[in-house]
């Protein structure tokens, strides 16, 4: 299959012109009737992989889906080289004396964000401890698309400088974080937002085993997975969240979010904006990158006056070009030329980063997937055994309803549904050690803050020891 993410069947100049004109109106008329800031519905699931520290799966409405698995391994930190080798180089860093310094590799000179960070004693990590791999069907690992995507997502991930510090165990050991992104369908449209959202969700749910050893001894961890700590702790107000990258496009003066394949084909300019969230200080812009819009690869339309198919002779090349230039750009399709206006870039960024802007909606929506599960689990664990027994009885008499079928059709990976009944159910009480396989279903309709973001979420079966069969709505 030839690797390409442009439209398989190219749109004709007439179609392109039609789309472009519709999107230039105020307000823009999108082919599927959405507003400019409205996202398509998607399905998001977390904890789909039992053997990974964290995992997520997101399916977009156009059929593309991605699975991300996060695995962590303990790795030995390189012992400090002798301080005799410390030399002045372009990278500004102060190497304090003493035996507890770690020497930086040559290779890390490129991605040095810790400029001026002198004392690297406790709690300091390195960006190399995060390793990302993207697999896209039809592409080799060294093709341009996977390499760029991987670089963009990693760049946003390590830019806040905090993630690597959480991977630090002690001076001799650290966690190595492997993020494996698997795009399950061939890339019909630019896959960056999908992969970024899925990575964000997987990282939100990533847990590291709890450390029980102290200081610098060989690390030992608590065997109980329930005691594992989240990589991005929820309650701590000072920690950041993993970043999210959004695709933003512009047509004329209009700014359009979550563009579909057709809309991208007529974009004047496309940006990928990476944002991060600090619970204390709101949203933070991490990076902005321009993407070459596929509209530049389209062929221009041929005006009637120069079209030899009309029966007249076609004017010579130069005259045809001049005629075309002189024509009104709205009447004939022309691939966009030139760059973006700075004011436009500023407006696009502002729309993403503003309070109650699009970026906040997206992050809140994703957090909602997470929270739904957490809430249910904590609610359930606080319950007593009577309620748990009651649920067990209810579950036996339960028959599938339309909601159930809807779930089965739209959420195929959650196949443990088995027509609405789990094949094996045990119940967890305070004394029992059996596990209950359960299904948490929560459907969040448009809420006050997520009024433009439609998201149907079903948390996957949770292989956890918590009985719950919670139906909201």
């Amino acid at each position, binding site marked *: *299959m030839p690797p390409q993410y442009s439209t398989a069947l190219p749109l004709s100049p007439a179609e392109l012109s039609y789309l472009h004109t519709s999107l230039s109106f105020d307000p823009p008329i999108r082919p599927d009737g959405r507003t400019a800031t409205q996202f398509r519905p998607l399905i998001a699931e977390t904890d*789909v*992989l*039992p*053997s*990974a520290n964290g*995992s997520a799966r997101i399916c977009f409405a*156009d*059929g*593309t*889906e991605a*699975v991300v*698995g*996060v*695995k962590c*391994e303990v790795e030995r930190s390189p012992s400090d080289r002798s301080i005799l080798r410390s030399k002045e180089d372009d990278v500004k860093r102060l190497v304090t004396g003493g035996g507890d310094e770690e020497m930086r590799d040559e290779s890390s000179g490129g991605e040095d964000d810790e400029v001026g960070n002198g004392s690297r004693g406790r709690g300091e990590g390195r960006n190399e401890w995060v390793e990302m*791999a993207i*697999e896209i*069907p039809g592409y080799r690992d060294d093709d341009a698309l996977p390499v760029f995507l991987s670089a963009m997502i990693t760049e946003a991930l390590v830019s806040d400088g905090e993630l690597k510090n959480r991977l630090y165990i002690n001076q001799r050991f650290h966690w190595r974080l*492997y993020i*494996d992104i*698997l795009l*399950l*369908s*061939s890339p*019909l449209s630019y896959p960056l937002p999908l992969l970024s959202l899925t990575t964000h969700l997987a990282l939100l749910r990533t847990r590291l085993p709890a450390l029980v050893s102290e200081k610098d001894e060989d690390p030992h961890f608590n065997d109980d997975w329930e005691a594992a700590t989240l990589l991005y702790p929820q309650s701590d107000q000072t920690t950041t969240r993993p970043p999210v990258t959004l695709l933003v496009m512009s047509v004329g003066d209009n700014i359009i979010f979550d563009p579909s394949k057709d809309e991208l084909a007529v974009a004047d300019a496309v940006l990928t904006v990476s944002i991060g969230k600090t619970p204390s200080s709101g949203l933070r812009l991490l990076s902005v990158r321009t993407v070459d819009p596929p509209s530049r690869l389209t062929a221009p339309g041929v005006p009637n006056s120069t079209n030899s198919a009309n029966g007249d002779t076609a004017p010579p090349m130069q005259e045809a070009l001049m005629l075309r230039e002189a024509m009104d750009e709205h009447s004939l399709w022309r691939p966009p030329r030139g760059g973006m206006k700075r004011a436009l870039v500023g407006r696009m960024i502002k729309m993403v980063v503003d309070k109650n802007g699009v970026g906040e909606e997206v992050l809140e929506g994703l957090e909602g997937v997470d929270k739904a599960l957490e809430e249910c689990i904590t609610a359930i664990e606080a319950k007593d055994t009577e309620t748990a027994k009651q649920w067990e009885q209810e579950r036996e008499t339960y028959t599938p309803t339309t909601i159930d*079928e809807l779930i*089965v*059709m739209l959420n*195929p*990976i959650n*196949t*443990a549904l*088995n*027509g609405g009944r789990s*094949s*094996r159910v045990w119940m967890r009480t305070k004394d029992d050690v059996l596990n209950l396989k359960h299904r948490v279903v929560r459907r969040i309709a448009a809420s006050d803050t997520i009024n433009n973001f439609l998201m149907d979420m079903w948390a996957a079966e949770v292989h956890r020891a918590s009985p719950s069969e919670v139906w909201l709505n």
Partner: protein
Amino acid sequence: MPLDTSTYSLAHLRLDGRRWNELRRLSASISTSGSADGSSYLEQGNTKILCTITGPQEQKQGGARRESNEAKVEVEINVAAFSGVDRKRRARGDRRSVEMQHTIATAFQGVLFTHLYPHSTVVITLHVLSQDGSLLACCLNAATLALIDAGIPMSDYVSACTVASSPTSSEGDGVDATDPLLDLNGVEEQELAFLTIGTSGEEGKVLVLVMETRCRVERLEGMMAVGLEGCGRIRGMLDGVVREHGGKVLEARVG
């Protein structure tokens, strides 16, 4: 060690609580991916496989044009790095994957009605999301469902499972009545001698028989008998999944 002989002989229960002839929980659904011609997702215990089909499609341009009156079946297995206990990236063309791909392709080449699609290619892509034993068998089962979803005619379901020769790795018992184990998980596969058997049709015509370990030849017949029975049961389950899905589609259309 996991397969301590003493615990099995006490209650004849394996580590996950199954008896010798019990299959793991099998759940599957088809038509999971909208963008592929056919797709399916199959879970057998903790082995999770997602299969997509592209085709029948034209032969790839470039390279010698194949002269044939039949469609060609190509298989691609993509084992995710997070699928095992340790995170490990597999090279694309490593020997084990190539062997498995070839086995699956040959199996389906015989079952699909390839004469209906001359000069075309059917590409089966298998994504292994999590592996816990019986990898080849689950791949065959998942591919069957996906091919049915793609609407490519075939003579019958291909169902497969694994069988171990005995519950203990020591052969000290001789040839007495120790039962072959059906449907192995990852831990059991590492310890015991086992084979993968794939059949098609109700009468159980054997299409695939792969054994990489060694066992005494007397035990082979018993293993195959257990395997055939297991495949028959799996075939029934796959059939159930397809019928259920078909029922839903019909209901949606007819209302």
